[in-house]
């Protein structure tokens, strides 16, 4: 019976046990109150059923102590639920440092997924067990939502924004993937599978299947030349634009004196709308690529720029803030 009518989905990520425990906590509180109140109501219905036609109830107008009690007690319990939920959520929204980054693009009505080595999948995601995975997601048209119930995770995929989420698969297997935000006619078939593999199997799968595919790094490098990015962003730091060596994940000093971390969102914005944030010491010369690049091309460029992370930055002409370092 249990197999046929499960009450909870499989637990296959680091969040699953946490979320289920939180669920259990709230269920316990709610069942207690629901049962207590229902029992009281039913008991009163029988106990105080009208005995004769002219009977009236005992006029009780209220009781301050009771009112206080049933404001304070639920409030305390509600705050406990809030706090616990907040802890889980904050963890969920802050991905840990060393993650396996997978790019996801949602479009009506399919998921396009790209592995770190450039392998592309559609409506399928292969992941290694036990690694922290971060999904970096964009949409080409309407709002979608990437949801994997077995992992207890989901996140909207919003056009014009990058949304990210992370989790750590803990159990090998195949799990359903859904689009959870209504996105038009074939919303219900914008589904797929997440396949979690042992790390060795994953590596083998990746190298075995990857051969024929274009590497985004290579594609990005090619684009970097084709679009003439390289003429200004020369690696020696002597161009009209800052060198990108060692840029990713470091602090950048801006013309207005603020600093930002060069993360995916920053790189995306700097490609699409370069003048939103100008690096200190440079002129706003770069043309904007909004509408000029597909999401996949942006991803390719971003992966290339990320690959420069470990190149040594030139002594001058790097965009990195002086007192830089990993965040």
């Amino acid at each position: 019976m249990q197999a046929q009518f499960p009450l909870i989905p499989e637990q296959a990520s680091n969040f699953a046990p946490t979320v289920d425990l939180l669920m259990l906590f709230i269920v316990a509180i709610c069942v207690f109150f629901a049962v207590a109140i229902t029992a009281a109501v039913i008991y009163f219905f029988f106990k105080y059923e009208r005995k004769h036609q002219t009977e009236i109830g005992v006029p009780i107008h209220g009781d301050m102590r009771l009112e206080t009690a049933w404001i304070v007690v639920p409030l305390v319990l509600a705050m406990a639920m809030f706090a616990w939920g907040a802890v889980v959520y904050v963890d969920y929204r802050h991905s840990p440092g060393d993650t396996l980054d997978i790019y996801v693009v949602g479009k009506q009505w399919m998921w396009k997924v790209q592995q770190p080595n450039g392998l592309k999948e559609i409506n399928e995601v292969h992941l290694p067990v036990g690694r922290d995975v971060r999904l970096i997601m964009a949409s080409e048209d309407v709002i979608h939502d990437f949801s994997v119930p077995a992992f207890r995770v989901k996140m909207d995929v919003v056009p014009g924004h990058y949304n990210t989420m992370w989790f750590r698969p803990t159990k090998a297997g195949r799990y359903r993937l859904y689009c959870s935000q209504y996105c038009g006619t074939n919303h219900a078939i914008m589904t797929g599978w997440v396949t979690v593999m042992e790390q060795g199997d994953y590596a083998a799968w990746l190298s075995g299947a990857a051969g024929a595919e274009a590497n985004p790094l290579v594609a990005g490098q090619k684009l970097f030349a084709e679009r003439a990015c390289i003429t200004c962003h020369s690696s020696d730091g002597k161009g009209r634009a800052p060198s990108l060596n060692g840029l990713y994940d470091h602090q950048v000093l801006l013309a207005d004196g603020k600093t930002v971390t060069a993360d995916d969102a920053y790189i995306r914005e700097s490609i699409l709308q370069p003048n939103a944030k100008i690096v200190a010491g440079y002129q706003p010369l770069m043309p904007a690529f909004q509408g000029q690049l597909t999401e996949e091309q942006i991803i390719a460029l971003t992966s290339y720029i990320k690959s420069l992370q470990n190149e040594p930055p030139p002594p001058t002409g790097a965009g990195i803030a002086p007192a830089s370092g990993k965040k």
Partner: protein
Amino acid sequence: MDTPTSTRTATAPIYKIPEEHYLNATYGIRSWLLTTDHKRIALLYLFSVTFFFFVGGIFATMIRIHLMTPQGFLVTPETYNKLFTMHGVAMIFFFLIPSIPAVLGNFLVPLMIGAKDLAFPKINLLSWYIYLIGGCFVLYSFSTGGLDTGWTFYTPLSSVYSNSAVTPAVLGIFINGFSSILTGLNFVVTIHTMRAPGMTWFRLPLFVWAQYATSIIFILGTPVIAITLLLVGLERMFHLGFFNPALGGDPILFQHLFWFYSHPAVYIMILPAMGVISEIIPTFARKPIFGYSFIAGSSIAIAVIGFFVWAHHMFLTGESVYAALAFSFLSYLVAIPSAVKVFNWTSTLYKGSISWDTPMLYALGFIGLFLIGGLTGLFLACLGLDIHIHDTYFVVAHFHYIMVGGAVMGYLGGIHFWWPKISGRLYPEFLARVSAIILFAGFNLTFFPQFILGYLGMPRRYHSYPPEFQVLNVMSTAGASILALGYLLPMIYLVWSLKYGVVAGPNPWPATGLEWKTDSPPLTENFLVTPEVTWEAYDFETRPDLELDHIVAGKLPAPAHGDD
């Protein structure tokens, strides 16, 4: 009269329908279409919202039939998407929002406060016409291509990508908004300025408090959704880009503006139902309500805090973590006043003199279903849990428990409670109790499985689903067929009672409100002499005028031995 155990036939005085009342004051179609009598306008609304209820109900039936198999066997995906969208639009904007305020509120607010009419009777009629015009636009949209955006109209799907008749639908809802605004305005002014002598704020029936709180939301929330949906319409017509990322707009802004109204709109639906329950319980427990000021205050608190929780629909849009924390916190705060109400209703039953009349059964059902609906709200307000259950059937089940289990149970309870006042006659008690029980059972069978479906991960708005979810879906469909019966029965026997029901007399329960101090059905002017209020709300002790030994309603036909 001396034996309290005797049955209705033995004790009930024979009442006659009064010779002149609001229903027969004037005749002809003009006298109805041009009426400014709040009671007649309430009936106009009663017919129109019932019409939309059945339109929405037919869509719901088709949805449930379609979902009996994992592939969905009734309609195409396009049609399925239109069905759930049109179900939502018809039910929310044209049934639930106007149901209790515009039908029962219109009928009762002036009667309850001892006024002859609302402050602005012509505006009241105008708001019914606006509702009709908005309704026509929406029906036009339904019949010329339908609507497939979901009732939430999320952009850019609605503003750019949808090929269905979105523009007439958003215009219809835009227009309909003004009907709500004018009704709310009318109620606020009426409650402020038209109360009878002695009817102080804290003697007001709690139904009036609930209407007042609802009106605040009408006034402050509705204009925002009106302008937002108008912008969506303009965006479609003129290729503007407020919410279209391709043109520089922000789709998330739409969600903020939309939920700024549409979350409080949930309270528009549930607050008046809470008001109805707060009337029914003291009447049938024959004692003052426990914690009057807490129930009244909690209505206002819900209306006010309800304006500051909207972004809890957006925890997973990528909104800032701080915003999510704040909105989750506030969502938990808004749960407290609802809890206070439930505790107070339960305490009211303590040491009461409880009768099991139909309205009381509805009230009992309301408490049960609202409890489940409200408590499951705590799951969704919880940030960590919302990650998993957001946009799943858990949400569908939750809001149906609130809106159907809560609001519709309250509405039907209210219709039964005030039916003698509206029509002058009693409904058949036995049938009414049976259908209340059918409704309760059918409702739970329909929607409880959806909580489990949701936790298992079945997303909303899917026209097909993985086969492992079929058992629960079939249960839900089975429940829906029982539920449908529960809705049809009252339709039939209420209409039957208009001609054959027992004449009720002015106060058949008896209840303490001013509306029961006038004839049933009342005169066009409500009261011959402006009443003066000298008693507190729900005071049975010092009210010899209630004639407890004369009650006519609520007794089932006498058992054969004539004694209980």
